[in-house]
């Protein structure tokens, strides 16, 4: 029997998973705290509780995400790109290209048949192509971030807005609100701005099918459908688990490899 864990400390959320014999037995997703160690501790305690196991029963734990080097309890730290590649492959075995949009960065990763990342590209500019962008915009619109995705389907005339700077985009949104533009058109414009930036980034590595999205923004139906239109192909939807957990799952899979190799 193998019992391993993966912990992904992101800028906005922290995720932890436990894999028992290659089966996902418990997951945890919390809002990140100021200190990565604290976020990781809370997420891990939560996932142990859900799985009804103690830390001592975990044979190997891999950490990833921006706070990975700060985690005292992990056996090893792995890069986010490797973990997202590995995790996405496990969630969607036919995947070749992964578009991961996290809280403060976005990445497009191409993987080989074994799930090994072979090419990747990350955003080179500010937060306007990331989860934080959507979060800020949803707040300005006064809606929950989960409602933002559905605005695209409702809109008849999406607005065009600044897409290189989150703060300027925020100013645009406020102006549109004051001008009485319907909320769904503003929401759809936000999703479109986001999708266009990601599509440009993705096109630089020539995405190959099957494509899937991971990270929190994968749950935004508006961005997802617009990205499909812009890239000219349908994405494979991850249904096996929450796409936001891909990094933590990848980390746990690396942990599992360590155990089985031993």
């Amino acid at each position: 029997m193998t019992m391993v864990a993966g912990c992904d400390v992101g800028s906005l959320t922290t995720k932890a998973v436990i894999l028992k014999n290659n089966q996902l037995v418990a997951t945890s997703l919390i809002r990140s705290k100021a200190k990565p160690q604290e976020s990781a501790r809370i997420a891990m305690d939560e996932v142990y509780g859900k799985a009804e196991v103690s830390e001592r029963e975990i044979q190997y734990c891999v950490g990833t995400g921006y706070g990975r080097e700060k985690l005292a309890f992990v056996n090893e730290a792995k890069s986010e790109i490797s973990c997202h590649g590995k995790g996405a492959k496990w969630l969607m075995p036919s995947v070749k290209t992964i578009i991961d949009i996290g809280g403060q960065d976005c990445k497009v990763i191409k993987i080989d048949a074994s799930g090994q990342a072979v090419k990747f590209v990350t955003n080179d500019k500010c937060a306007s192509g990331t989860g934080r962008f959507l979060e800020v915009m949803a707040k300005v619109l006064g809606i929950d971030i989960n409602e933002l995705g559905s605005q695209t389907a409702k809109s008849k005339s999406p607005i065009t807005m600044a897409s290189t700077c989150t703060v300027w985009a925020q100013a645009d949104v406020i102006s549109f609100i004051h001008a009485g533009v319907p909320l769904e058109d503003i929401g759809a414009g936000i999703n479109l701005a986001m999708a266009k930036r990601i599509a440009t980034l993705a096109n630089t590595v020539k995405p190959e099918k099957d494509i899937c999205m991971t990270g929190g923004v994968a749950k935004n139906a508006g961005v997802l459908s617009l990205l499909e239109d812009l890239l000219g192909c349908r994405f494979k939807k991850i249904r096996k688990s929450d796409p936001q957990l891909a990094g933590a799952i990848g980390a746990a899979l690396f942990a599992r490899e360590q155990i089985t190799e031993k």
Partner: protein
Amino acid sequence: MRPEIKEYNFDWMLGSLLKTAANIGNCSEKEIKTLLNYVPYYKGTLEVLLREGEVGTCFIRLLDKYFDNILNAHQNRKKIVGITFCLSPTLFHAMDIVPVTLEVMTGLCGLLWKRGAYDYLDHGVELGFTETSCSSQRGSLGAYLAGLGEEIDFLVCDTPGVCDTNANAFAFASEFMEKPFFQLNYPYIIGDEKTKKYQLDDYKDLIVFLEEQTGTKLDQDRLREVLQEVDVQDDLLAEIEDFYCLIPSPIPILFNLFMYMGRFLFSGMPEYTELLTLMLEKVQDNAKNGLSGLHQTQEKARIFMCYIDHYTLDMKFFDWINQQGIAHLGAILSRNFRDNTRYAPDFQKSTYGIDTSSLETMLTSMSEMNATLPMVRSIRGPFDQPNMWLEESISLARMYQADCVIYNGTPGCRNTWGMVKPFAKEVEKAGFPVHIMYGDAFDDRVESWESSVNRLQEFFSIRGIL
């Protein structure tokens, strides 16, 4: 600009610091250890430099001399010229003019001060430069525009048609400081007879300008002496660079920085010859004993820098690659394209020779040497002409058996940053993984070193290099 920054001249602060550092070089190990406690802010940088032994201390002495020359120029009845790193200082040394190379001084601020050149960079913005203008130039230029340096007497640049951002900044500085200004121009086509003649005529006009500014005629014998020194230096450079072909590379990581910084500041000066001689001895010694140039680690990977290094505090970039076991195979900046280099045969019509037989041949040699400098020719753009930045980078990476190519620069660099992605695609096609660092070599506020190193680690790990 903060009022306290205006209390001291920027060149005096750098010069004083390097003067202390130069004295440390003469101390015993125990004395150095004690003294370093008194310089907490640049201790890290000094430690990395002193690790290079005699070569490191010689380099510090050279920098000390550079600032001594600037700070005492007027007292010694010499004129100061503001120039760019793409302009060879050889002619100025031959005419006893003290060159201030703006980009190198900004780089030194980054390496030596915790606050880098931030205050001067921001002063440049206060005067109207954009935040995305060339930071390498804007840093020290900001200080001079604030009047915080030994007065510059005149300006010379050679970037019209090469880097208009740079040229425009010089033109503005000339107006702002009310100082005379000369620009060498560069035609689109390089290496043909028409262009060579144009460059030579332009260079002759520069000499007339310099004679007017200094009130002194160019001394042929002195020019010959300086050019003969350059000739020796070119031979030494070519010989050192040849050792990059060995695996492991016997060349310590910092040597490349010493080579190009030395060339931009001291080309033609005997002190630079002394430095290069010491470097060659060290490299030959390492090669003879089959040693890598890395300190206390084995060579695990080899990188070629296709533009510049990262000039952050404590030389963290250089120290980090050393810790990882990565050999630095040089940057495109150090390549002078002299006709006797190993790579010269691949770049016909892009090299220069030195002929000191007559004034005309000496001027031709200098104008051609200048036309091969970084940016004037090499980094004008990857698709500007055949046999330039793109081909050179691929050729050198191949010759030195690099595992990958790393780009580091500044978002203000229109020539490289502006075209780095298409460039990277072509280099990848040639079989070399490429990493583009998104930071600014001269301004850590664009991307912190900590973020840069995370991305570097990711690259080396994902591409299976480390």
